[in-house]
């Protein structure tokens, strides 16, 4: 049965335009999870041939792995190792600095200093990665990394266990995993510091007052009361920083030296997963070559996904524990 709808019926059907509006809003909201799924699925689909061809052998930890596009021999271990080593070293280097900065910003700095310092941290985070890389190549490597690298080599190069990580010689240019770690440490410090600062600011003021009333000093309050209270949030901040470091591409590509060699050393050139993709993907002509690169992308995606989800969960937990009492 067909009949013409009157305008009031149309209005009722569309609820004065709210029904299409709501559909549009929900569709837009669905983009977010859909995008995540689509990224994962695309990487999974486009690495099928490589996964089939190499299986778990692709990931085997080995010192003399091969990456040979001509012979179609690909193993991901040197890149996974490079990414992990540089990121974790960066994290260790950055942790005391960013914790100290966060404590200073949240607990110590006077009001007139808080705003400009927070802005400076945000500007540091806003500087594009390539500019870090450019500064790294021409200033940071020769002036900082090479001397530090040589000193480390002299001090630790011949110790029995640790020595493996400090084998030399440091390249004259300074391009090394150490360089990448230091640049990454600089880049993730504002991220970790900002999130940790927010965690400290979310801790109820009653915790501070109680501790100070018991006679604790300012520092004891920070270290023995606030730090344990916000620990899971701080852990979240640290994991977030690690996620940033894992995925960072341009600056690392410019300073790490991009070479595959069977060494564990921090002082030698290396390669990371993201810098490999950046360097080779546009020129990868073989199907297996490009698929192996996409598989490396998939591994990186899964690693950052897990880290990010864990980090966000931890930070949320602190923020939700006491939303009313938060200081901000």
């Amino acid at each position, binding site marked *: 049965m067909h009949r013409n709808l009157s305008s009031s019926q149309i209005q009722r059907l569309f609820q004065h335009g709210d029904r299409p509006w709501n559909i549009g809003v929900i569709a837009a909201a669905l983009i977010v999870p859909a995008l995540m799924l689509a990224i994962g699925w695309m990487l999974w689909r486009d690495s099928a041939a490589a996964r089939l061809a190499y299986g778990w052998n692709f990931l085997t930890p080995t010192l003399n792995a091969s990456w040979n596009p001509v012979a179609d021999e690909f193993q991901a271990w040197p890149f996974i190792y490079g990414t992990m080593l540089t990121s974790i070293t960066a994290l260790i280097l950055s942790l005391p600095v960013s914790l100290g900065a966060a404590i200073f910003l949240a607990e110590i700095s006077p009001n007139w200093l808080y705003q400009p310092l927070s802005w400076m941290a945000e500007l*540091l985070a806003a500087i594009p990665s390539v500019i870090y890389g450019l500064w790294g190549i021409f200033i940071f490597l020769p002036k900082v990394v090479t001397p530090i690298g040589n000193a480390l080599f002299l001090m630790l190069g011949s110790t029995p266990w640790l020595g493996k990580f400090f084998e030399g010689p440091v390249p004259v240019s300074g391009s090394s995993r150490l360089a990448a770690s230091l640049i990454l440490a600089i880049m993730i410090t504002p991220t970790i510091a900002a999130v940790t600062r927010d965690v400290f600011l979310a801790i109820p003021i009653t915790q501070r007052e109680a501790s100070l009333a018991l006679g604790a000093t300012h520092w004891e309050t920070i270290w023995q009361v606030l730090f344990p209270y916000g620990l899971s949030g701080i852990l979240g901040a640290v994991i977030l920083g690690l996620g940033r470091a894992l*995925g960072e591409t341009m600056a690392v590509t410019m300073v790490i030296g991009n070479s595959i060699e069977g060494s564990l050393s921090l002082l030698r050139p290396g390669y990371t997963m993201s810098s490999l993709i950046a360097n080779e993907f546009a020129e990868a002509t073989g199907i297996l070559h490009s698929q192996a690169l996409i598989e490396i992308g998939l591994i990186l995606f899964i690693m950052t996904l897990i880290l990010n989800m864990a980090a966000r969960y931890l930070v949320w937990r602190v923020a939700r524990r006491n939303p009313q009492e938060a200081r901000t």
Partner: protein
Amino acid sequence: MTQFSQSRLDSIDIAFYHTRLSYNRRKITNQIMLIFTGILTSLALLPLVWIISYVVYKGGQYLSLDFFTQMPKPLGMEGGGVLHAIEGTIILTVLGGVIAIPPALLAAIYAAYHSNTILGIAVRFGTDVLSGVPSIIVGLFVYALVVKNQGHYSALAGGIALAIIIFPTIVRTTEEMIKLTPRTLREGSLALGAPEWKTTLSVTLVAAANGIVTGILLGLARASGETAPLLFTALGNENYEIGKIISSGVANRQGLLAILNRIFEQPVDSLPLTLWKYAQQPYPERISQSWAAALVLMILILVLNIATRIWLQRRMSRLQGR
């Protein structure tokens, strides 16, 4: 007996002495650690000063008007500019914004008003996680999605990649801003009989406009500095000149759509891409140009950042003052 009490007195004395000592020690530890955090803060911010001053110093030496208005000269020749990269940066950033902003606003509206539904939580959690996805992965994704299907690198693919990068930033800031607008505004509009969509578009979004624009500008600033997602989507193109494309299009009596299509279907360069390529070339001229490109890029991004933050702060203090 006396001996015992004497030793007891001694031990009390010693205990007292120790508390004094440890009190002093605690006080000193407190001072030292508080100062130490200040030192660590300046250590964290030292690279900012170092990088900015060096980029200004090195880039400032080379920068001239030619740098903005000339196309690149062949390798090894003096002079030439990066007009193509500046045009490309603008095209890519605008394209990324145009693609990302409408759905990001809608998603933020959903997340702000349905924060406790499953989808609302998924949006907020998803945007947080999405902003942590490495930008090179976004590049790979857009390559698989667009470049492979189109069969060639293009500005369109680069724009889509940048859109994915800025999408979460815009969603999060817009959501925060909408939540800051007074409920009464919205209720007043609904009570007057305005439908939900009209209320949201012409009352809520307008009330939150300053903050939303801030979020968008910060997102665009970040996008204009991205390199990794453009490596295999926009690729780079030293012959890209919008003026030429438009004038040849007009001369051939092509329509607006055809001209736009020609602008978007070609690979383009951007400032960070050019900077990256030039920095690796063994020609001093090119390296100077990459410092100059870094300076231009840095000024663009820092000015956008500082200006929007000042603006936002004024806006927030006015809101809180009310």
